[in-house]
């Protein structure tokens, strides 16, 4: 059942920010919006909240058209990146504020605030003021405030980006387990893809004024519909090479400078049909592997000689930039191996993992 619907909404300031964006979020769904900084994610949330007036388009919540409803009547809750806790009120009063606005009785307010505080493990802090608590506690207080009055839509603006890793992990778990979220639709904004991956039922990649791709984390990763999406999701960033496509004796190849790579025949079908001669080739570092001596090569894979330029050991994995016949490729390596500068290595890539993007508009050429 569609809970939140955005219908071709448009919003601009001195330049257009959101351009005919449409989205449908179901009840109980946790929708994550990812995108680079400054792209308009916060603006989008503010539009849904009612803090910004739409230039065009409509917003529906539970079927009601709320486009012209002011924020205090929309029953939407939002956390701010800066928490926005009222400094002159205690934690208790901060969380109780939405309930007070609804003129609930004191006893009800008290029980609800205690309930939420317990849930978020801040029940010991209720008498403190915001300047007396830590960042993580502030975050949870802000979260508690948004939960307090049973909003219909839950908007979270980079709520945990400023916290240290341990607390982030804790809060992420809480997002998973909060019962309350099943009753509402949640729109969660982040620039951290890993976070999006772990939290979202569906993910929307924001770019160019709209949602460039919507899908599950897996879908977006495996099948980015444009170079933009591919480049922004995935750590480290995808390798992209400008290539010419040629066919020699029924064998299609991609040429980048002096590097020649075979093209998977399935891909070539689509490319040939569209008469593509030049495009951008995308290879994810995850699919470029360093060969360790006696590993047998698989059918479709190609082995190339490369020279190590830069190597970073990052704990769970290593990132290496290797130069292969003049082209630089980023490779993910096992953490145990160590590589020296200028070391010669052999890498293996599998053409079936390649992505091809249009040279001009970056659209993925393989549907």
């Amino acid at each position, binding site marked *: 059942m569609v809970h939140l619907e955005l219908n071709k909404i*448009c919003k601009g300031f001195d330049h257009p920010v959101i351009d005919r964006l449409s989205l449908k979020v179901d009840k109980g769904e946790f929708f994550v919006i990812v995108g680079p900084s400054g792209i308009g994610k916060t603006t989008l949330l503010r539009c849904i909240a009612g803090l910004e007036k739409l*230039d065009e388009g409509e917003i529906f919540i539970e079927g009601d058209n709320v486009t012209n409803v002011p*924020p205090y009547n929309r029953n939407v809750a939002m956390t701010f990146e800066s928490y926005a806790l009222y400094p002159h009120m205690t934690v208790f009063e901060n969380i109780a504020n939405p309930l007070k606005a609804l003129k609930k009785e004191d006893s009800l307010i008290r029980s609800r605030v205690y309930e939420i505080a317990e849930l978020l493990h801040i029940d010991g802090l209720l008498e403190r003021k915001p300047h007396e608590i830590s960042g993580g506690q502030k975050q949870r207080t802000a979260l508690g405030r948004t939960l307090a009055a049973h909003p219909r839509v839950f908007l979270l603006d980079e709520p945990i980006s400023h916290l240290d890793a341990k607390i982030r992990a804790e809060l992420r778990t809480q997002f998973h387990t909060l019962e309350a979220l099943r009753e509402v639709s949640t729109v969660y904004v982040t620039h951290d893809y890993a976070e999006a991956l772990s939290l979202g039922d569906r993910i929307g990649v924001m770019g160019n004024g709209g949602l460039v791709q919507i899908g599950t984390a897996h879908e977006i990763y495996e099948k980015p519909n444009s170079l933009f999406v591919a480049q922004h999701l995935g750590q480290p960033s995808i390798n992209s090479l400008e290539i010419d496509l040629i066919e020699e004796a029924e064998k299609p190849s991609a040429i980048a400078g002096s590097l020649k790579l075979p093209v998977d025949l399935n891909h070539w079908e689509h490319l040939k049909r569209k008469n593509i001669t030049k495009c951008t080739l995308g290879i994810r570092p995850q699919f470029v592997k360093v060969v360790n001596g006696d590993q047998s090569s698989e059918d479709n894979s190609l082995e190339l000689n490369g020279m190590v330029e830069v190597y970073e050991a990052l704990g769970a994995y290593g990132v290496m930039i290797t130069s292969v016949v003049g082209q630089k490729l980023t490779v993910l390596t096992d953490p145990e191996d160590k590589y020296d500068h200028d070391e010669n290595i052999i890498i293996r890539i599998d053409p079936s993992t390649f992505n091809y993007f249009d040279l001009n508009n970056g659209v993925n050429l393989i549907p």
Partner: protein
Amino acid sequence: MKEISKTDYPDWFLKKRTGKNLIVSPAIPWLMVGFPVLILIAIVIYPTIWMGYHAFQNTSMMSLFNNNFEYVGWSNFYNVMTSDRMHESIYRLIQYLLFGACLEVILGTILALILYEMIKNELLRIVLLILMVMPMMLPPSIVGVLWKFLLQAYNGAINHLLINLGFLDAMERIEWLGAEFALYSITIADVWQWTALPLLIVYSGRVSLPPAIYEAARVDGAPTWMVLKRITLPMLKEIIAIAFIIRFMDAYKFVDKIYVMTSGGPGQSTELPVFIAFQKGIREVEVGEAAAYAWIIFVFAALLITLFLKYLKNVLKAQAFA
């Protein structure tokens, strides 16, 4: 991310979009501002127009009550601009601003910095600040009266103090309020009272400067005078300038002390332009001329201040990039 070029702007963006806000109806801000503005208009614009009108008439006491004044064009302005009385008062005004307002700002700044940098004891600092700021709390008229009392030629405490300290012979007296010194005496009273304002402003500004820079300077081992010259003063430049503007804006238009101490005398030796306007307007009820005076004074001051503010804005912009 490619920026969408202007030619690619979608239609809805190019269409005229209302600036309407969801949160409050657009009428409300105007109502909120409107009421005070209306009152200001009543109290300020009305007099402005009135004075503007009468500046071109030959209004005086009788004609005002009988409502028979006639248009005399620019002659009021002409009379004012060419009167020696006005010229001399302008000369005195410059003296007063230099030795009064300027001196107050300079002294205030120096004292504020001395107080902040050299008195480390919090309590002592606060006590001294309060003591130094007290003159500002007094009514300017009372300050005038007080100094008039102190500067009496024969019974005045100042003269006798000078005698006791040996600066004057037993029979000598300085005619503080005589033709020679009267202006300086008024200036002294003014400096006594108003140095406190720039002092307070600069002190407050100094208090609000970020401590991080000073800690960095200390770590770098910079000597005190260098810190002062290279860090404190540049950061306070803007505040000092504003203190100057505030003091200047008040100095040229408040004539309480002249009124109370000398009434412009002896003769006309302590007349400042605004005071003359007062005399003309209230005592002699030469309203037309007084209006011309007021307008000339106001326009000049407004011009100067606006120029100074513009200069200030540019200096600040430059500083922002520095």
